[in-house]
């Protein structure tokens, strides 16, 4: 049936490109999660009235985050070419897309982590301080667990945006379903391939949304 509707789709190629999309999304998501939590925590803790209140550091981090969030992703890839070449040794293929994907999305995620942390009840932080908790305990046993639903739903939103970014990266040489839809579909005039690639991306997005919503719901005991 697939062959009848999509005569030009080669399944081997398709699976290879799907794998590349999942690979780029998955690996960069791990790094985005780590950097996003770190930056989000720093943004939160150095903000006014918090444990590490420091106007200057807060301003610096906020400036970096805002700048990288503001640069359009396509331009960011181009700007990062020398950097990418330096650390990945190449500027094509899925691995070459990783630095841009991570640097482009981590600041976005950091903001969402910060928003989640700000929603943690101040009284609960104070209660932990009154019990004699050290800052690391407050971070790992109060701040992160209490904002976990926001952290996970933020990661879901980021992952979905990331699938979109991999498609953009694909068009300029990173592989993945975006590359498939563009190079094998659009460039060769095979509209069925473009459509097939699009459907695959949509399915991936829906699955991510479903998993994210499910976990968020399970975590939220409020």
């Amino acid at each position, binding site marked *: 049936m697939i062959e009848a509707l999509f005569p030009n789709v080669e399944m081997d190629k398709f699976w290879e490109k799907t794998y590349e999309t999942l690979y780029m999304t998955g690996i960069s998501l791990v790094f985005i999660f780590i950097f996003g939590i770190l930056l989000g925590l720093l943004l939160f803790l150095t903000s006014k009235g918090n444990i590490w209140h420091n106007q200057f550091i807060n301003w610096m981090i906020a400036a970096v985050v805002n700048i990288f969030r503001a640069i359009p992703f396509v331009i960011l890839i181009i700007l990062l070419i020398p950097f990418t070449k330096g650390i990945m040794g190449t500027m094509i293929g899925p691995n070459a897309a990783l630095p841009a994907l991570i640097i482009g999305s981590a600041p976005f995620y950091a903001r969402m982590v910060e928003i989640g942390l700000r929603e943690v*009840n101040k*009284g*609960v932080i*104070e*209660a*932990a*301080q*009154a*019990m*004699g*908790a*050290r800052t690391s*305990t407050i971070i790992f*046993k*109060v701040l992160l*667990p*209490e904002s*976990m639903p926001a952290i996970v739903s933020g990661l879901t939103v980021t992952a979905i945006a990331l699938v979109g970014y991999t498609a953009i990266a694909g068009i300029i040489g990173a592989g993945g379903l975006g590359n498939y839809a563009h190079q094998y579909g659009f460039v060769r005039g095979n509209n069925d391939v473009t459509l097939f690639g699009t459907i695959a991306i949509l399915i991936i997005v829906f699955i991510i949304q479903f998993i994210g919503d499910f976990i968020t719901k399970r*975590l939220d*005991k*409020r």
Partner: protein
Amino acid sequence: MISLNNVTKVFKTKSGMITAVDNVKINIKEGEIFGIIGYSGAGKSTLVRMFNGLERPTKGTITIDGKEISKIRGAELRKARQEIGMIFQHFNLLWSRTVRDNISFPLEIAGVPKVKRKKRVEELIKLVGLEGREDAYPSQLSGGQKQRVGIARALANNPKVLLCDEATSALDPETTDSILDLLLDINKKMGLTIILITHEMHVIRKIAHRVAVMENGKVVEVAPVMEIFKNPKTDITKRFVQQITDEEETMEAVQHLLEKYSTGKIVKLTFIGETAEQPIISELIKEQSISINILQGKISQTRTGSYGTLLIQLVGDTEHIDKAIEQLKKQQVGVEVISHD
């Protein structure tokens, strides 16, 4: 046990300096339930937060059990805080943890090993009467149950002092009483020193031994609770005492009576301790040829004795009424003739 020496806290705000706590001097004995009462903005919250170093005094010192809380920092302060429990108006439980895990949290902070932690948590759950709710999340509990978790959590590390920051203000009257009974019970069983701040005289009446009245950052009066009821010195203290003794509608009714009956006099009697048990009224009727109309009576129990008020109307000719009032004044009762406003 606890001594506050000339404690002052000044906050810098955009509109200038605000003195939240002004030169407070208090000594609290071991095993005492010490109340601090004041309206919102009186500085009582700021004061109580200085007991465990959540705020630092601008001037003065706070010493608990020989340790100068207002001076120590870092690890030493954290260690000291583990020996000072605190409960809050809005409970401040972690919603992400069950009842059991919430109570376990201070034990984790103190580095108690897992097996011991488990045992202690079971003890505490029994102590506060939450058996069967161990695996519930805070969102599944009522306000009173949440405060019980708060109390269990505050007691986990066997503190010497328990700070209560408006601990019953978010609860209904019945739940308030059950929480106060629990605090009383804990005070008796463990000899724990309890400092509670509130704006409700009812709370003070029910469990405190002594009370400090705060207004505009200053402690205007410190005395045993009975003493405060018997002999309130400042206007604000009188207002707090009236929260319990005079209900508003009674005073309205009295005004109405005063307008209606120009003859006779309305007298308010206050009884303290044993005088509440003497047959003062029947003696008055026997000895003076007047009749007595009882308008309202109330008796309240404090930790150290009972305190009662009685509103009566004396009817008869002026001469006899004056004599009756004279006779009352000779007794161990407070006499106040209420007149038109």
